[in-house]
């Protein structure tokens, strides 16, 4: 394992971990639903960065395909989860709009109540 591969993997993977931590911090401390979903996706991106970083085998050698496949699957799963969560958010919005029609909430919190 040449020194150069090690450095890139460490650098890139470290960034991924940082993303993950930022994502968790944002997920926990921010109320609105869409901010939580973005935080989730950041966390996902972080983990996928780690995986891709680990897959790096130097500039010439082809990268390790297994983590790549994992990342692909992870992305699709993350997308479908986000889609479902957004649908839930929209449903709560529609529920509220029926009850309080005049206020068109833009950034409503995850449990649908308004800021």
């Amino acid at each position: 394992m040449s020194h150069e591969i090690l450095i890139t993997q460490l650098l890139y993977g470290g960034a991924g971990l940082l993303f993950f931590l930022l994502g968790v911090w944002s997920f926990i401390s921010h109320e609105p639903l869409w901010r939580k979903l973005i935080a989730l996706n950041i966390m996902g991106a972080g983990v996928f960065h780690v995986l891709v970083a680990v897959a790096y085998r130097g500039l010439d050698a082809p990268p390790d395909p297994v983590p790549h496949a994992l990342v692909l699957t992870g992305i699709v799963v993350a997308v479908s989860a986000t889609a479902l969560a957004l649908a839930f958010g929209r449903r709560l919005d529609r529920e509220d709009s029926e009850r309080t029609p005049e206020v068109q909430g833009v950034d409503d919190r995850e449990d649908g109540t308004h800021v």
Partner: protein
Amino acid sequence: MKASRLQTVLIPLLLSAIGAVLFWAFWSGVTGHEGERLAALALARVPESGASNPVTSVLLNFRAYDTLMELAVLLAALLGIWSLGPAAAPYQPAALLLNSLVSWVVPMLIIAGGYLLWIGGQAPGGAFQAGALLGAAGVTLALSGRPNAGLPDESWLRVLAALGTLVFVLIGLTLMFLGLGFLTYPPALAKALILTIETGATLSIGATLAAAFLGGQPRATRTAEP
């Protein structure tokens, strides 16, 4: 509800502790490991997998089960969205400029998708990227005012959405009944099987993404929603 002062201090503190341990672990994980992880093994066996692109061979052959389940997750998400209520109101019909742009872009996307699907076997591409493009086409159609984003009505849409996974499972089961074992492609047929699975997957992924964008139960008829 404003997080109390304690939490604003406590959460970062805890996270930094976890972060430190993670970095230390990652550092020791990466440095400590001398051998090639699964790369060598996977790359060595790509030729027998029926696809030259290693990622596709991993995705659709070595870890085909994962991909099957992933398609199921996509389907579950779609069904979940449908069960939450009717679709959103369609956008107001596009003006001339947008219409013409759409009439150019959508076919382009579809051709590009087809190309990606085909090239998947040799180079980076494959079902998911192609599906994404088809999905993008659907989204642009929806944005340009078409109520159900170029998708068929509900009964056919359900078939389309489930098609990819169905093809995958049926192939798996037939292989098992033939005695080879679930999802074990005979080397000769591997390439053809992968291709059929990929095409099925592309179609259903595209349809699913587009339907997901509509965000609800597809309208049975093409009534124009106010």
